[in-house]
């Protein structure tokens, strides 16, 4: 069985791509799937830290491409799940060291021994983005309910359509339900209407995500049942083909309902 290649991208930086990739990788591994996560952000390596694997790196993606090691040697096995691997980015090189064809080849070589390959794209729409989407069977666009992130996501939607790579699916990250309730933040429906692409998950803002990053222990590992952790698990289940209903992030209070009644638009 050939692996499914998912590329996570966003246009704008800092919206939570790497956090999403780390959590999806672990969540799919928890389902018993064989997963490789690839850090495609050459020069700005970070996925290793999110996973707590930064001390285990020997070789990286560019070493594989330039033939200094075999692909298997560069894969870092996760401490917790024997079927989860990281292919780290090179830290002292830049994006010109990787081509779209290189990424396609690496993913093809990984294809038969894994179920999912998740590529963490660099921010931007330049060469890093181009090689990250080259091997993708499916693309996930991450955005925040915020004007700059939505605008950049729309550019990426357009570029993906132009490359005939789509249709991409959307993750809305860092939503603050209490701000949406007050009308001070774009709502999920607003973002979907503006971008006109299919939704695959909504992740609420959660301080535990920062704590998880501090420790190198993705949030999906903890059993504190945070809404964000649940949201990551749900996205992973949807990626694995399960039908999972979208959770309500917060019940609208009486005040919220009254407010809608007063100004229905």
């Amino acid at each position, binding site marked *: 069985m050939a692996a499914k290649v998912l590329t996570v991208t966003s246009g704008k930086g800092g919206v939570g791509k790497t956090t999403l990739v780390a959590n999806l990788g672990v969540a799919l591994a928890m389902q018993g799937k064989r997963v490789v996560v690839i850090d495609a952000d050459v020069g700005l390596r970070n996925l290793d830290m999110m996973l707590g694997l930064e001390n285990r790196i020997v070789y990286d993606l560019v070493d594989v491409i330039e033939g200094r090691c075999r692909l298997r040697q560069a894969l870092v096995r996760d401490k917790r799940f024997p079927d989860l691997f990281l292919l780290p980015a090179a830290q002292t090189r830049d994006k010109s060291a990787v081509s779209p064809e290189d990424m396609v080849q690496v993913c093809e070589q990984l294809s038969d021994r894994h179920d999912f390959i998740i590529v963490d794209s660099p921010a931007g729409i330049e060469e890093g983005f181009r090689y990250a989407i080259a091997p993708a069977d499916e693309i996930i666009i991450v955005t925040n309910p915020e004007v700059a992130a939505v*605008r950049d996501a729309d550019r990426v939607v*357009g570029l993906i359509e132009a490359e005939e790579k789509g249709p991409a699916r959307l993750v809305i990250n860092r939503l603050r339900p209490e701000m949406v309730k007050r009308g*001070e933040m*774009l709502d999920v429906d*607003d973002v979907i209407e*503006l971008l006109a692409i299919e939704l695959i998950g909504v992740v609420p803002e959660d301080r535990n995500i920062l704590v998880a990053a501090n420790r190198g222990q993705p949030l999906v590992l903890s059993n504190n049942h945070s809404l964000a952790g649940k949201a990551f698990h749900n996205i992973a289940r949807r990626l694995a083909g399960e039908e999972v209903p979208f959770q309500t992030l917060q019940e609208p209070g009486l005040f919220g309902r009254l407010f809608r009644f007063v100004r229905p638009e």
Partner: protein
Amino acid sequence: MKFFERLMGRRAASGTVAKERLRLVLAHDRTSISPALLDTLKDEIISVISRHIAIEPDGVQVTFSQRAHETRLVADIPLASRRRGR
């Protein structure tokens, strides 16, 4: 205070403002038609139509309307009000 202003319809919630601004900017981004180009279009539309019909040039509006993947260029051109005996 903000809440009451909003309740009275004097101040739109910033979420709504964000959505409206994005609607417009995405229409421009997707078509790569700049606001300056829209202004040029507007001026030329006014001059072409004025050659044939009397219009109110100050009331002319050339804008985008955006629904999902469908973008339209909308020109709203008020005709000059005709008064008898002129």
